[in-house]
């Protein structure tokens, strides 16, 4: 009589996984650049759904904020402002496809091998009736770890390890400064390429000939 039961956890896991994979493939196959970005957003959003399903609220919200939100910003500032024509299409050559397939296939093989070799990541049916899902962790130890206070190492015997020598504050700051430099550089590069006369003027001739006659 087990056939009547639906495990909602598995159901939503499969649903989100399916959505993520489908839209990832759709993004590859599409040639319309804004649609590609949209499919990417849906795929990344489904991945954040997987995180929420696993009880990792913080990582899920981070995924939404950084990856999904970041894709939106890339879509806006990277694509729309630099596109010379509306509804821009991108053509991908055969050589690029082949190269991408090799690199992607290798990465997939490595990841699959790694994922299947960890016993704790086996599906619940292999583990037993009650998979060990716990949602008791908070984000506080993570934030404290960034500040240099390793809550998880309080039991450490060695005093230097216990006193936050292994904090992440310095790497964190270095990465932040690095990102800031990259941002400023990107803004500078994007700025010099702008033509002064027609910020969005391209749209007029191609999309709406009637309106452009008034120019």
């Amino acid at each position, binding site marked *: 009589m087990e056939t009547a039961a639906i495990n909602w956890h598995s159901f939503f896991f499969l649903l989100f996984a399916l959505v993520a994979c489908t839209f990832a493939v759709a993004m590859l196959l599409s040639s319309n650049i804004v649609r590609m970005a949209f499919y990417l957003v849906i795929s990344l*959003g489904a991945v954040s759904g997987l995180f929420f399903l696993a009880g990792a609220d913080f990582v899920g919200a981070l995924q939404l904020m950084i990856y999904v939100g970041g894709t939106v910003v890339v879509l806006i500032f990277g694509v729309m402002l630099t596109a010379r024509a509306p509804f821009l299409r991108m053509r991908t050559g055969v050589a690029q496809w082949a190269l991408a397939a090799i690199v992607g296939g290798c990465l997939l093989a490595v990841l699959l091998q790694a994922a299947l070799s960890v016993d704790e990541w086996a599906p619940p049916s292999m583990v037993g009736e009650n998979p060990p899902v716990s949602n008791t962790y908070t984000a506080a130890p993570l934030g404290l770890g960034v500040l240099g206070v390793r809550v998880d190492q309080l039991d450490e015997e060695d005093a230097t390890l216990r006193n936050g020598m292994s904090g992440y504050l310095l790497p964190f700051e270095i990465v932040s400064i690095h990102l800031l430099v990259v941002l400023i550089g990107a803004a500078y590069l994007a700025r010099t390429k702008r033509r002064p006369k027609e910020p969005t003027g391209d749209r007029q001739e191609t999309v709406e000939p009637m309106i452009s006659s008034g120019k």
Partner: protein
Amino acid sequence: MAEYLASYFDSQWHWVAYALVGLVQAGLLLALILTGAAVFIWMERKIAGRIQDRLGPSRVGGRFGWLQSLADGIKLIAKEDIVPAAADGLLFRIAPYISFMAAFSVFLAIPLADGWVALRMNVAVFFILAVAGLEVLGVVLAGYASGSKWSLFGAMREAAQVVSYEVPLGLCVVVPVMVVGSMDLVEIGRAQSGWFWQWLIFHDPFTFITFWVFFTCALASVNRLPFDMPEAESELVAGFMTEYSGFRWSVFFMAEYTSMFAVSCLAAILFFGGWNGPIPLATMIGLTPDNGALTEWLGNLLGMMNLIAKGFFGVTVMIWTRWSLPRLRIDQVLTTCLKYCIPLAAAMFLGAMLWLYAFPGGVVSRFVQTSPVGGTPTPVAVVDGKGGV
């Protein structure tokens, strides 16, 4: 609730119980925000009318025209759904739903009373900021896919505005989180239980100013006047909504009013005590968890009404602001954000941090020796090294 219901079913039918509970909870939330949106639209027209010395809607449904939104809804559903020839059909059709979904999902994490929350998370504040930021995606897609100049201008303005205002908004939200020491909205609400001087807005002068910066940024992030750039009826026809008609157009409006209500509720929880009233009425008449499950339920019901009333008040202030202030230009909008809101928010963040360090335990509670149920706010300025919260 799901486990309780599931105990009435055979084990192989547990999934039905979980599905039912999920549907009921989603349905309740949807009912709350859709009714809310209808009431807000009616309220907006009525208040706008009164401010402009008109009557506003006055025919449909009796004296105050209170059924006007319903009549409008029926009209909008019956209207033709037009997709422009130059539009990207798929994205054009799907964009309003993305906006609405983002605005709706915020309510998953907003507690309506102590523990009455669809999804209790220990990072609820962060989740809300992340999800609310997705609303811009729908607007940008709508503006781009419409194939119209006005729409694209609106979308670009929305992008610039929302992306910049997310920064001070995030900084402002951090201040109450820091004072309470938790990102869990239920915890933040509990920390403010008691009289109104326990509210975080009255915690110290910095939180007081933070609230006003928060409110300004919230106005901008939900695109209300004076930050009404993406829509800007008098410049851009209707901005990103220019090409929309019928039901999809109304979905955009529902998203807008839903997110207005959401940020008002968030402001109420972060700064105005959430479900804890100005006067701890529920505690006074004994509606506390100590006196049994029914009184706890009644107390929560009272708290929910309290929170919703505060949310309604916030939306009313937003409507009032809209019909009182003129629209800023886009450069003035960005100047307000980058030159005023961000430095102010950063200064308030620093100030609140120093204040917590100087007066751990708060100033008001030092002079007013009341100890309501739930205790006084316990600020965590110096983390004790055991996980802080």
